[in-house]
């Protein structure tokens, strides 16, 4: 009796989430399967997806590379933070969080200022008499932008897993004769797997769908799927094709997170 009453509190929420997350996805499906002008059912948007497969491939490549670089850069940082004193951990954690709270558009623009042909780096190079470099409008610049923007999303989950690893396990491994390198490979690394997987997902998902980074830091040959969708939807006025591409992007992301969760699920059992 009293229990039923509190269950009712969840009903508005469920209705809200169905109305504003599930139904919109249905509407995306509806647009993907209709003709932009006549509004009748058509497969043509779906058929056209084939032409965009190279762009999809390029987006996946860029974001995978970025996610891996984030992991390589982020792991030592997370490990270092997790092994500080309590107060230092808090301060460093906050310093990782802080950039996430600041305008990501402006921070990306700052990179433009750093990398452009007459930007800060090139000016410095020129000042010491070195030749100017082509930094902006390169694939490397796009990857740099992704790594820069999403690195905190890698460090934070890694930190939370590493900090939870029972120090006695490390001592036990050393006691059983592992060298520090072996201890890391056989104990610390497997136990940080859930953090690694969730970090990879948290970098990969926003990276694969970004359009601002590639627009500002990339060139004509670094067009990503996000750019295409944005242009079709906002400028090209082909919302239906944009919807079809969004649908494909969503499926891609759900498959990726699904795989990560499956892998993570096994690993979590080890931690518990």
């Amino acid at each position, binding site marked *: 009796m009293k*229990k039923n*009453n*509190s269950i009712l*509190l*969840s*009903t508005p*929420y*469920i209705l*809200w*989430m169905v109305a*504003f*997350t*599930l139904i*919109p*996805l249905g*509407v*995306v499906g509806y*647009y993907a399967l209709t003709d932009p002008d006549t509004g009748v059912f058509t497969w043509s948007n779906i058929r056209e997806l084939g032409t965009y497969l190279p762009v999809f491939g390029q987006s996946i490549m860029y974001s995978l590379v970025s996610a891996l670089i984030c992991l390589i850069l*982020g792991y*030592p*940082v997370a*490990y270092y933070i997790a092994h500080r004193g309590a107060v230092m951990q*808090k*301060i*460093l954690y*906050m310093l*990782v*969080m*802080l950039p996430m*709270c*600041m*305008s990501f*558009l402006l*921070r*990306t623009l*700052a*990179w433009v*200022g*750093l990398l*452009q042909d*007459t930007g800060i780096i090139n*000016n410095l190079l020129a000042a010491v008499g070195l030749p100017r470099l082509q930094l902006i409008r390169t694939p490397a610049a796009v990857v740099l932008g992704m790594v820069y923007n999403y*690195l905190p999303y890698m460090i934070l989950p890694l930190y939370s897993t590493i900090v939870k690893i029972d120090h006695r396990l490390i001592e036990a491994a050393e006691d059983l004769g592992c060298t520090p390198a072996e201890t890391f490979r056989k104990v610390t690394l497997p136990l940080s797997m859930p953090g690694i997987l969730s970090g990879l997902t948290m970098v990969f998902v*926003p990276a*694969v*769908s970004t*359009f*601002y980074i590639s*627009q500002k830091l990339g060139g004509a040959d670094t067009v990503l799927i*996000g750019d295409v*969708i*944005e242009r079709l*939807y*906002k400028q090209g006025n082909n919302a239906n094709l*944009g919807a079809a591409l*969004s649908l494909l*992007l*969503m499926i891609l*992301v*759900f498959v990726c997170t699904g795989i990560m969760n499956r892998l993570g699920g096994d690993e979590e059992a080890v931690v518990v």
Partner: protein
Amino acid sequence: MKKANKIITIAIFIFLYIPMLVLIVGSFNEGKSLARFDGFTFEQYAELFRDPDLLALLGNSLIISILASLIATVFGTFSCVGINSLKPRMRNTVMSLTNIPMTNPDIVTGISLSLLFVFVGTKMLGQRNSLTFWTLLIAHITFDLPYVILNVMPKLQQMDRSLVDAAMDLGCTPIESFFKVTIHEIMPGIVAGAIMAFTMSLDDFVISYFVTGMDFVTLPVEIYSYTKKPIPPKIYAMFTLLFLLILVLMITMNLLQLKSEKKKARG
């Protein structure tokens, strides 16, 4: 090994903060370019406060993020109580529903909401302009809600259930026991959720960009439109002020947390 970690960590922090430093230096620059420092000035700050349009945009961003995070916090907190008393299977379903906006790329969320609003507004209600302040608000509440739920839910589950029993045992109705006991226990989660929702809303660009109409524009959306024209340096001044604000906010939050932890540790 340890030394290498330390060096990498310092390098990464420099990497994370250099672009922001560039913007902050830019806010004191006499010239317009980020790349060349032409002399120190406070002029950009004066410019910022003389620009009613820019301040109005900042106001819009604040209105949306304060309203959305406030509504999402209240709505989400009560919803958590409901979700928590659902049967496990139903609860898992609702939590997966909650995770959709978290895992879905922002661009998909933005387009899907935008299409929904256009579809309902234009095709079903016959409005000419279906993207308004209200649709933007709905969109923000929708992506704020999971942050509240994911912060409050664990606190609610960690809470000793017998505290609610005790309150009822002492004469509280279920509603009274929520306000007299439960809410105090889950307060840290509510505050964390509210702050997260607020910062997410304030900084959101992608979803707002797709859902926003002509008549109500937020600051990030306006900044995006500077792609074509050069950025006025007063924006850097605004960035610097926001940076300080968030820095102060975070430090206070951490100090408060540290204080309450110390209090607990003494017990």
